[in-house]
């Protein structure tokens, strides 16, 4: 199998080289006249875009996060990443830290509470990078409710800012609203395989 793979590699690269013909290998100049990173951040835009795609937005102090979690998930079972701040979790939720839980175990939780890495105002997008306060990708996928706590200093204007901040070596999940589909008559409906409810809690920078 190894031998065949090597042969196909040479075959394909040979075909592609022949197809291009004699060529330069210096990268071509790409005109990047679109809006660059560094634009002004407008939190109201973020809130509008999140709401527009059916996420629920809460704005409060860091100390009040527990109250929001209580309102949304009080009395329910919640999975959390290893380093989520303890004061975000009210006594009313049964919080279990993900320490190599199985997928089936995670699927049995009602909700998940995480931090975020970056948020994009213009598109209403939250990005998770699997840091210890966000956890493994699976924990934000299987429970039906995701509460994501965002600091205002994590909010950027547009996609170029987010790309500049993120580390491609980490597994990244960009989330824009709850799970949705446009597959039936091209109308967007929320709620397919991922969490059907997304709550974004915006807190001031520390």
């Amino acid at each position: 199998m190894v031998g065949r793979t090597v042969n196909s590699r040479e075959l394909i690269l040979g075909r592609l080289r022949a197809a291009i013909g004699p060529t330069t290998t210096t990268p071509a100049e790409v005109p990047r006249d679109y809006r660059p990173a560094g634009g002004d951040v407008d939190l109201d835009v973020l809130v509008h875009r999140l709401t527009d795609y059916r996420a629920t937005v809460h704005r409060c102090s860091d100390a009040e996060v527990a109250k929001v979690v209580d309102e949304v998930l009080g009395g329910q079972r919640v999975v959390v990443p290893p380093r989520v701040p303890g004061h975000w979790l009210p006594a009313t939720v049964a919080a279990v830290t993900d320490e190599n839980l199985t997928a089936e175990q995670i699927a049995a939780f009602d909700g998940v509470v995480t931090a975020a890495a970056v948020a994009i105002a213009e598109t209403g997008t939250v990005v998770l990078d699997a840091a210890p306060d966000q956890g493994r990708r699976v924990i934000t996928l299987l429970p039906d409710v995701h509460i994501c706590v965002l600091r205002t200093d994590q909010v950027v204007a547009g996609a170029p800012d987010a790309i500049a901040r993120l580390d491609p070596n980490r597994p990244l999940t960009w989330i824009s609203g709850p799970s949705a589909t446009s597959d039936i008559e091209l109308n967007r409906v929320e709620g397919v395989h991922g969490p059907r409810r997304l709550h974004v809690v915006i807190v001031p920078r520390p």
Partner: protein
Amino acid sequence: MTSTFLGMPTTAPRGVGHLRGDQSFPAAARRALADSQLRRNLGHATATIRAKSAAVIAEAPDWQQLRDAGAAIKADVMARLPELLEQLEAAVTAAGGTVHWAADAVEANRIVTELVAATGSDRVIKVKSMATQEIGLNEALEAAGITPVETDLAELIVQLGDDRPSHILVPAIHRNRAEIREIFLREMPGVDPALTDDPVALAAAARRYLRQTFLHTPVAVSGANFAVAETGTLVVVESEGNGRMCLTLPETLITVMGVEKVVPTWRDLEVFLQLLPRASTGERMNPYTSMWTGVSPGDGPQQVHLVLLDNGRSAVLADEVGRQALHCIRCSACLNVCPVYERTGGHAYGSVYPGPIGAVLSPQLTGVEENASLPYASSLCGACYDACPVKINIPELLVHLRAAHVTAQRRPTTESIAMAAAAYTMDHPALYAAAQRAARLTRLAGRRGRGLPPPLSGWTIGRDLPQPPPQTFREWWAER
């Protein structure tokens, strides 16, 4: 084998995959045009998506600059494809992934089937992927006793309905909610018999049906929207979360990707992640985008494979004009604005790549003579070129491929003789004037064109002929 032989760009092989229809476009279109339900479904769906897309594109003041950047990045990719693929291979390997090279559909199917078999699983979960449809992977897996489960809602509708996809983004666009409900009631095991045709209820039915399959299938197959050469990062853009399930839960992940999907740098994603959602689903950003670079210890699949697929792409690349078809990011904006697609639907194009991009991509992947009617399946109205987020000049490509088809004819045809004669006549003003006078004889055919031979008789199926005037302009001018 000589090196010359090794280096010959090659079209996609016959007998495998789904790039060739069994009918010419006009014949297949005739059948589709007679289906009034299909036309209503398509008209409604494409009008909806056009309006949504136009609204979010209007929000981006730098849309044209993003298109220019996207087009330039893709042109750069094509000019440096071999080195970028080698760079990608090195980066993926360094991050713990395994890279495989598949010269064609047969080899790609064999590689994937062997990788799945090695896991011991008799089932794979699949994220919607054009590349795996193109190569007929599902049929190959089934032949090996492996059940492929399509997890994208539209793909699921198509798979359960034993149907064929008709749109790049929304493969079941030809079905309305009532038809989808019927398919679910008939084919989905364990479905609630009281299921309504409310899209929310239909989506919930799919959620319930697939949940256990997601949790208990150890291997997934995906495509990739982008692969970053610089970092080895693969990107899948989706909506439902079925992609995240497939990319996160199984132990083994196999990604099949056309070689043209590579982009040079991490930064290039800032362009495409703005272009793709607005052009495709008409969203500012799609609900979920997953990015992974090789293996992340303890998080997600620990066996990560990337299959790089040629299957005719080298032949497309060899055509300096035609290669821009490889710039396509599969957004399907060109389908949604195409007046031909809106009326015939995707099945008429035969290939998994329908619509304007399919009309220029499929004939190049297979060789133009095996999809010879597709370059003519357009009125050259140009709506596709305006809509394309990476500015593929589809009308130019259509005309280019028509010329390639004409050149491929070894003998003169009725049409080629008529065209040469017309050009000769029009290059001799006296002959031309005589021909104009002769045109008046068509008055004899009447406005309904009685007795006109094909293809001219095609005109008069729904249109009267113009009455030739008593005097041409040049006759009038000469008398002035």
